[in-house]
């Protein structure tokens, strides 16, 4: 069954001057759908030093209770900086191709 698309506001209803009112709105704009590679965490190797969290340019490393638990794939662009900067011998972050991820049903 086709779902009804939400109606977008008309020109009279929008804030003037291309403004977006309110803070933290980047969260609602999902920009991570055009990656070619994605980071995958290897939890048993990760020491939660948070180096990846510091370096991530898109704040896409998810940290809970001081531990790295995974990545926000709605915003991760797949740049690979996290894996490159991971100081663990043998790396606790793997960059795998999106095609591979999709094949493995990780999407």
């Amino acid at each position, binding site marked *: 069954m086709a779902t009804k698309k939400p109606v977008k506001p008309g*020109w*009279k209803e929008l804030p*003037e*001057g*291309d*403004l*977006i009112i*309110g803070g933290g709105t980047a969260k609602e704009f999902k920009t991570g759908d055009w990656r070619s590679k994605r980071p995958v965490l290897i939890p048993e190797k990760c020491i939660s030093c948070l180096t990846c969290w510091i370096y991530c340019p898109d704040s896409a490393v998810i940290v809970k209770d001081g531990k790295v638990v995974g990545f926000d794939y709605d915003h991760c662009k797949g740049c690979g900086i996290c894996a490159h900067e991971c100081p663990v011998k043998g790396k606790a972050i793997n960059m795998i191709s999106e095609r591979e991820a999709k094949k493995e049903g990780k999407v």
Partner: protein
Amino acid sequence: MGTSNVVARTGNEAMAEAMRQIDPDVVAAYPITPATEVVQIFAGFVADGLVKTEFVPVESEHSAMSACIGASAAGGRTMTGTSSQGLALMAEMLYIASGLRLPIVLADVNRALSSPINIHCDHSDTMMVKESGWVQIFSENAQEAYDNMVQAVKIAETSKLPVVVTTDGFIISHGMERIEILPDEDVKKFVGEYKPENYLLNIEKPITVGALDLTDYYFEHKRQQIEALKDSKSVVISVGKDFEAKTGRGYGFFEKYKLDDAEYAIVAMGSTAGTSKVVIDDLRAKGLKVGLLKPRLFRPFPKDEIAQALKDLKAIAVMDRSDSMNGNEGPLCLEIKAALYDKGLNKILINYIYGLGGREIKIDDIEKVYGDLADALKGKKIDKVNYLGVRE
């Protein structure tokens, strides 16, 4: 209101004086002839502590307008000045200022665009950016330049649109005239305090400025901007009325000089309107029913009101101090033609491209234009587009 002071000022000094009295939060500017003095004199006011303005000397006009955009988005009352190539270099940022609906005020001293390189007056710089979404106000003389600068702040902030106020390079910018200047406190009261609804430095109410706007929202934002520009017409009128109440000097979309009973008339903007008035007085003394329409507001173009003002004329000459490079008429003539067409007015309409690169326009030249109109009324065929004052 206090009493006005009568002073001798050049156009540039008059504009700088208005800026001193307005005391904007930020002025970011780069020097260029013949507009240099506007911001140079103002920089002196900053150095002397006469204003509280943050003066940002930048490395180009592109940067000047960029800094103005940042300052205005942050919530500051922002002004700048430029000319010709400087305005051209700002062009990209002018569209951003208007799209973001930032009420920046720009003093533009009209100067020809290169090439060939030339520092003298014509209107090609302002005409180049007539589609940039700025409100454009032309001044005939130093008094109007001063008055328009003061009004521009209110027009900009009320309509949330940037405003450019022009003078004719050298002719007005460097010519000294007797003008009346308001007391400082009256100007401060007139422009009031700038209280933007949304601004970046308001940490209580965060906003995003200049977000990516693709196929799903761009059109709506542009539609808003178009409406704001249409609405600015009524703002121009109400600010002009307020200003008249305080100074006795009235301003609207245009000035009519001996137009109401005229048979034929000139349409001209800027300093040429002043020369035309002298000619009109001479010709009127000889019994000829001639007049002038001097558009003040060029953007938005007050099409219906101008058509109404021209409807009883038998012949019209439109004076263009720039060419539109469309192979036909100049930019002002195109607007006038469109205005008359929509009212079903098919008149004798002759276009004169004149004064390019500062070529003098003299009383004789204007007399010739009125002579052509008189001949055309008698049935003589006159070219639709003429190049007045060029050597053949």
